[in-house]
Structure formats: C-alpha cells, structure tokens
C-alpha cells in the first residue's frame, strides 16, 4: 500500500489533471508607463486583473474621458464601414498593413475623413435632387407640349363660340391677324393652364378633386410618363403621369395650385409656343448632361475617398478596440496615496511570472520612465481561478466539462478521462460501423479544411460542429469499433472474423425453425455471432447481453469516479475524507453492485440458469434462505450475508463520524477563543488581500445535515445511477431497430421489384432516412445521453465544480461583438 502511494507521489504531475498553480500579484505602476505596461500585458494575455473599482459607476472612473473618445472613434469607424458597404466597395478592398499610428493622430484623421464624407454626401444629395427635378421638367415638356398643340386647336373652336358672346363689341379685333386674334381671345377669355407631373397612383383622385373644386370648369389631360422616374423628394423610382389642367379665372388658379401642393404634384411652367418649348427643352437637356457629368465625378471622388479609408479600416478598428480595452483595464486600477502610481491586482499562473516581469521591464524602458514597475506576490483570501492549458484537441472536451461547472481550483479534472470515455459511451449507443464510417468522413472533411473554415464567419450550428470536430473524430472511430463488435453494417451482419459458431443439428435443418441451431465450436472470435441477426430469439439474447453490458460499464465508471475522489482527498491532505467517505462509499457500491457485476460474469462463464433478479432481491429479503437453483458458486450464501452486513455498516460509517470529528477538530483549533473579540481584528479595508485567520462559527447542525444529505444522495444514487446506465442498452436497441426497419422495409422492399425507377426511389428514401434520422437525430440523441451520463452519474461521485474560469486580459480574446 505504501509503495503504491510512494509510486503515485513520484509520478510527474499531469498538467491537465489539475489547474495550473495561480498566484495573486500586485502591480505598482508609475503613471507614465501605465498605458504601455497594460498594452504589453494585453499582448501577453496571461494576467487577469481584478476590478478594484467595482463600486464606482462608469462615470466616476479615472479614464472615463479616454473611453468616451474611443467610443466616439468606433462610432466614426462604423459610419465609414456603413458607407463603404452602401457604395458596394467592400469586396474589392484588400487591407494594407502599415505601421501603427498614434491614437491622437488617428482621432484627427478620423474626424477629417468623417467631415469630408458628410460634405460629399450632402453635395451629391443636392445634385441628385436637382437632376431629378430637371428630368421631370424634361418629361413634362415632352408630353405636355403635345397636349398644348392639340388643345390650341380645340381652344380655337371653343373660343369662336365664346368670342361671339363675350367680345362682340370689340370691333377692332377683325383687323388683326388670325393668330393674334386667337392669342388675344385666348388671353382675354382667361383660359390658362397648369402643367405638371404627379404619381400615377394619385392621378385619379387628383382629377376628381380638381373637378369638384372648379365645379367642372376645367379640362384635364394626362399622359403616362412612360418610364419610372426617380422622385426628387423621396429618392425612389415611381411611375408618374404628366398632366395639363386648363382653367379660367384667378380663383381657380389658386385653388388648383393648392390642390397640386396637397397631392404632391410638381408643377413646371410650359410655354405654349412651340419654338419656345423646343428652346427650353434644349436648355434642359444640356443642363441635364452637365449635371450627369458632375454627379459621376462626385461619385468617383467619393469612391476614391472610401477606398483609401477602406485600406486602413480593419487596422483602425482593431487599434481602437485595443485602446478601449486598455483604458477599461486601466479603469480597474486604483491610484495610490501619492497619486503618482497606479495599483493593480490580478491573478496569473506561476509559470508566467517571468514573462510578465519581462514585459513590464520592456514597458518601463520603452516609456523612458525613471521608476521601475513593482511586481510582487500577495497572499490571497479567496480561491484562485481555474486555468487549464489545453490544445486544439483537448479544448473541446474541456468545454464540455466546463459547461456543467468549472472545476474548483486544483481539483481533479474529469476531462482527462472524458476524452476517451465520452466517445466510447457514445459509440456503445450508436454502434454501427457503416454509420461510423459516414461520421468519420464528415469529421475528416472538417479537420482537413480546418485552416480555411476557422477564418470564416459561421452560423452557430456550424460553429459548434466545427468546434467539436476532434470529438466527432473520436466518436466515429469508436463507433466503427463498436459496430464491428455488434456486427452491424447498416444493420447487416458480416462474417468478417470467420464462420458462425452455430449450425443446424442435422443435415436437413428440419428443426432450425422450431428448436434452433446448436453451438458446435468456440464463440465467434470478435463480436456478436452473425447467426443471431434475423432469428426469432435475437431480441431476448441481445437484450440480455446489452443490459448486463450496461451494468458492467456503469459500475466500472462509477468506481473510477470514487477513486478520483480518493485522489482529490489525498491531494488536499484530507485524511478525514479518505477514512470516512471514500472507504465506506467503495464498500457500499461494490458490495451491492460490484457483487452484481461479479454474479453476471460468473453466470456467463458457467452457463448457469440462475435468475439474477431473484438472487439480488432475496439477498435483501431473506438472506439466510437456501439458494437452491440460484446457487452460482460454493459459499454464495455466507458471502451474501457478509456483503449485506458490510453495506449496512457502511451507511452509518459515512453518515456519523465526520461531523463529530470536524467539531472536535474545530474546537481544538480555536481553543479558548470562543468568545467574541473586543476589538475587531478583521478589517478588510486595511490591507487588501492579506490573509487573516477567519474565526468562523462552527454550526454543527448545518454540517450534520450537509453530511446526511451527501450520504443519502450517495446511497439512493447508487441504485438510481446504476439503473440510469441502462440507457446504454435502450439507445443501442433503438438505433439497431431503426436501422433494421430502414434496411428491410425500404431498401430490400424496393430492391425486390424489377423496375429501375422503384429501385432508385427506394435507394433515395433509404439514403435520406439514414442521413437525417440515423446520422443526425441519433447522433444528437446519443451525444446528449452520453453527456448526461458523464455530467451526473460519473461526476457526482467526486466533482465539486464550483470554481471560476481564468479570463486573462488579452488582445486575442477581444471579440467582434464588443463594439
């Protein structure tokens, strides 16, 4: 026993087994080198700062102005990014790496760029509006011109009638030319027009409104504009209609203008003279082409500016983010009494101390400071954070374990065993080497494209799948192994390892369907014999096999858990736990369920017909009775009585001694100090972080109840956890049955027909069902149940899981969504 203990002690420690040793350090940094020191520490990424200003609000902290400036700069950078995306330039910009710029310079540059961009934007807005208005004017001229020509002809006929009534006393009109007469009659009869353009959807209501307002004394002509025009105000393309309204009288004019305004119709003056129309059209066209040229030049200028910004954009964004995080960290530090130094506290791993000191020295030198940075270790009151150094491979498993609870500082890390047992238990529930090969292909694809996929941005599902690619790899390898053992390839058995061990009793195989085959040689060398598949007694045999297998695997894993609790107790020098928790727990679990496992193995080895349910139940109900047919080995009855007594003794052994001994130890330690202090010795504000002895009250009833809960949980849990492992049987049965159904009822059925179309359809349905139900749903299901078995049944034997994770201040860990 002692040599074994010495051997265990001499084994070099495994880093992943227990958290790295952490120490609480204090930094005293002179102000001039503070920013640089924190930046270098951020690059190193091995120190977790404690927030010494937790009670202060964000606006009471020292560096709040700098943080605000960083926030303002990141707002400007977001604005630039939006503008670049809107201009559609994002894909064509390749970032250029240039040496770092100082923060103040960057701020000035950013505000200049922003100013320039805003100005360019507003200018181009104005130009665009003018352009659109001129476009509308041109279309109005075009369409309205045609109305006026035709309406002049109409007007002539109407005017003739009017003129006879109204202007009969103007005799000198007969001398003037016909055109002049028309003009004057047109003028004197007061027939005027308003031309404009309006949205097509509003045209009908507009016309009706005008009709009502002028009491029918108007003529409304409209023509569609033909193409969609950009509305100057809303900057959208809408279908518009050109209209001309003929009316008479000043009142009608004001009414019509108001209605136009209300309906958002734009009115443009069109001269009725044809030559003048042409002249104005020419002017408008020339102005339009000028504007187009100007607009194009403006857009090119804007794109050039945006491109030049885009070269540096990612670099600037990273810089601003880093600076913000540096100032946030600086805000966690305190000023000391002289106001010339900043004091900070943090956790760092012991192996990193040299690197941190070197980084601080570099900061002192680079900032030309006279005073060095003081870095020393402090004693800690609280428990340190937990830090495991993981690589690509073990990282996924550590995250699986951490999802349940982060390990307490320096307790045993279940991830070491989870790396193998988790894929193994998954495979026990998934066992089919055909499906395993599919999973293996998927995992290999993910691993082969590692470098490419890690730079892309993935959806949350793909990200989880990619993060767990090594877990998937091991899961698939173990699935292939378990599939070979269960002898299932898409539920089809193969004779890979030789012939079956069963054959017919005689040459005619007459009673193969009634009495069955017989076993004529040694069992099938690897895995389940292929003769079982499809037989009528397949399920009774496999169920019995898998249930017993689940119990054996479960008892093994639970024993591993209890042994890990022993190693924890040894590490923390807690001999009380070893003597009064580990030993009775081992005795209890193994005298009941370890004995059951032994019975299972003996029954298998001897081929006895004993009923194990009966044996176990009557071991409790009437242990002294004669066993009769259920006797598996000589001496079974006295052994059962002994084991039962051991189990019964183990329960008070784990319940009672520990609280009493703890009470005795506590009273020995604080002998004579049971009365209260006159002067309060423990002042948390005096020296932060120095270790003091806590004079705790020992609440006996609390400790006793805690121990009772722990013992009851273990005793009842022994039964329920063992039964819980039967899910290994249940899921593997479900998988095998689903696989059989898809194979026999889909593929074989479709293959039975001679028609190639039906065969192809059957193949397709089989492929889809396998991919979605078996490969995706069953994988997730088996993953979940294997996870539960680890989190609950394995870890509740030894894992406390109430620590907190080490989160160092590191530039590499700043994520995008901190913006």
């Amino acid at each position, binding site marked *: 026993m002692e040599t074994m203990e010495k051997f265990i002690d001499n*084994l*070099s*420690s*495994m*880093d*992943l*087994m227990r958290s790295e040793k952490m120490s609480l350090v204090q930094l005293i940094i002179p102000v001039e080198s503070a920013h640089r020191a924190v930046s270098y520490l951020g690059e190193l990424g091995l120190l977790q700062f404690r927030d010494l200003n937790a009670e202060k609000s964000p606006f009471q902290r020292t560096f709040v102005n700098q943080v605000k400036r960083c926030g303002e700069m990141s707002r400007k950078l977001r604005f630039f990014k939006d503008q670049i995306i809107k201009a559609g330039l994002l894909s064509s910009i390749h970032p250029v790496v240039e040496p770092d710029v100082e923060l103040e310079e960057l701020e000035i540059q950013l505000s200049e760029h922003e100013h320039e961009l805003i100005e360019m934007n507003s200018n181009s807005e104005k130009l665009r509006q003018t352009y659109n208005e001129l476009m509308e004017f041109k279309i109005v001229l075009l369409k309205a011109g045609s109305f006026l020509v035709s309406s002049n002809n109409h007007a002539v006929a109407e005017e003739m009638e009017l003129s006879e009534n109204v202007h009969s006393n103007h005799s000198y009109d007969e001398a003037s030319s016909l055109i002049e007469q028309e003009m004057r009659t047109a003028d004197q009869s007061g027939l005027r027009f308003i031309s404009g353009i309006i949205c097509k959807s509003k045209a009908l209501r507009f016309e009706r409104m005008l009709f009502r307002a002028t009491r029918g004394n108007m003529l409304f002509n409209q023509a569609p504009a033909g193409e969609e025009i950009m509305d100057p105000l809303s900057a959208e393309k809408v279908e518009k209609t050109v209209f001309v309204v003929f009316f008479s009288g000043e009142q009608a004019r004001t009414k019509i203008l108001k209605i136009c305004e209300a309906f958002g119709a734009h009115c443009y003056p069109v001269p009725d003279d044809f030559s003048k129309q042409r002249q104005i059209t020419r002017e408008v066209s020339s102005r339009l082409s000028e504007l187009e040229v100007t607009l194009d030049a403006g857009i090119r200028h804007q794109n050039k500016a945006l491109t030049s910004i885009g070269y540096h954009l990612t670099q600037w964004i990273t810089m601003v983010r880093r600076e913000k995080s540096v100032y946030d960290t600086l805000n966690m530090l305190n000023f000391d009494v002289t106001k010339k130094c900043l004091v900070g506290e943090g956790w760092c791993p012991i192996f990193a101390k040299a690197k941190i000191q070197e980084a601080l020295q570099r900061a002192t030198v680079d900032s030309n400071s006279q005073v060095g940075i003081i870095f020393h270790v402090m004693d800690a009151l609280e428990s340190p954070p937990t830090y495991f150094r993981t690589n690509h491979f073990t990282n996924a498993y550590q995250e699986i374990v951490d999802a349940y609870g982060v390990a307490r500082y320096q307790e045993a890390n279940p991830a*070491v*065993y989870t*790396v*193998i*047992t988790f894929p*193994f238990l998954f495979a*026990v529930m998934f066992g089919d080497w055909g499906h395993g090969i599919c999973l293996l292909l998927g995992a290999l694809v993910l691993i082969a494209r590692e470098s490419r996929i890690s730079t892309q941005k993935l959806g949350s599902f793909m990200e989880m799948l990619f993060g767990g690619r090594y877990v998937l790899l091991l899961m698939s390898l173990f699935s292939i*192994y*378990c599939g070979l*053992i*269960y002898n299932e390839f898409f539920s089809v058995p193969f004779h890979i390892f030789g012939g079956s*061990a*069963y054959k017919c009793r005689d040459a005619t195989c007459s009673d*193969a*369907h*009634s*009495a*069955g*085959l*017989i*076993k004529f040689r*040694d*069992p*099938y*060398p*690897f*895995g*389940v*014999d292929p*003769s*079982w598949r*499809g*037989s*009528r*007694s*397949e399920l*009774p*045999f496999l169920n*019995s*096999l898998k249930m*017993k*297998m689940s119990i*054996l*695997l479960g008892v*093994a894993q639970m024993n591993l858990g209890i042994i890990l609790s022993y190693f924890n107790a040894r590490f923390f020098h807690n001999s009380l736990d070893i003597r009064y928790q580990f030993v009775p727990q081992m005795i209890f679990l193994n005298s009941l369920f370890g004995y059951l496992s032994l019975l299972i*193995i003996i029954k*298998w*080895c*001897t*081929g006895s*017909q004993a009923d194990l349910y009966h044996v176990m139940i009557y071991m409790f109900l009437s242990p002294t009775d004669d066993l009769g047919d259920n006797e598996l080995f000589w001496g079974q009855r006295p052994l059962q009585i002994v084991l039962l007594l051991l189990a019964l003794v183990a329960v008070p052994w784990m319940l009672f001694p520990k609280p009493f001994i703890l009470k005795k130890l506590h009273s020995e330690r604080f002998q004579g100090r049971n009365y209260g202090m006159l002067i309060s010795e423990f002042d948390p504000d005096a020296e932060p972080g120095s270790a003091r002895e806590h004079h705790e009250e020992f609440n006996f009833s609390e400790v006793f109840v805690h121990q009772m809960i722990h013992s009851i949980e273990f005793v009842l849990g022994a039964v329920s956890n063992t039964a819980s492992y039967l899910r290994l049987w249940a899921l593997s049965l479900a998988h095998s049955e689903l696989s059989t159904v898809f194979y026999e009822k889909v593929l074989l059925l479709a293959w039975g027909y001679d028609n190639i179309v039906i065969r192809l359809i059957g193949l397709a349905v089989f492929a889809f069902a396998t991919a979605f139900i078996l490969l995706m749903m069953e994988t997730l299901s088996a993953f979940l149940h294997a996870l539960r078995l680890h989190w609950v049944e394995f870890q509740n034997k030894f894992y406390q899981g109430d620590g907190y994770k080490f989160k160092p201040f590191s530039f590499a860990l700043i994520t995008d969504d901190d913006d």
Partner: protein
Amino acid sequence: MGFLVTTLIFSVVGIIASICSRICCNRGPSANLLHLTLVITATVCCWMMWAIVYIAQMKPLIVPILSEGE
C-alpha cells in the same frame, strides 16, 4: 482463439500504442503521462467491450431460432 490469447493481443496492442505515442509526440513528462493515460483508458474500454460480448457467448442459454423464410 481463446479468451486469454485475445486478451494478450489487446494488451500487446496497448503497449505498442503507448510506445508509438511516446515516440511520435514526445512533449515533456506531463504531456507524456496524459498520452499514456489516454491510450491505457482506450485500450481498457475496448478490451472490456470485447470481453463482455465474448464471455456472454461462451455458454449461451438460448440458441438462434431461424424465422420463417430464411
């Protein structure tokens, strides 16, 4: 091939695998111990699975009864 022979084969495979992992990725004593633990755990798990299925078939209480149409 008997039970003991195959158990021996499993243990030999386990030893060879641990030697290979020591040769291929020798990264310091702590990582070596981790790799050794992983290899031993995997070997033990695989052996247990095989042994359970093998022993269960050594002296079976029921035999395959073929179903109709086979």
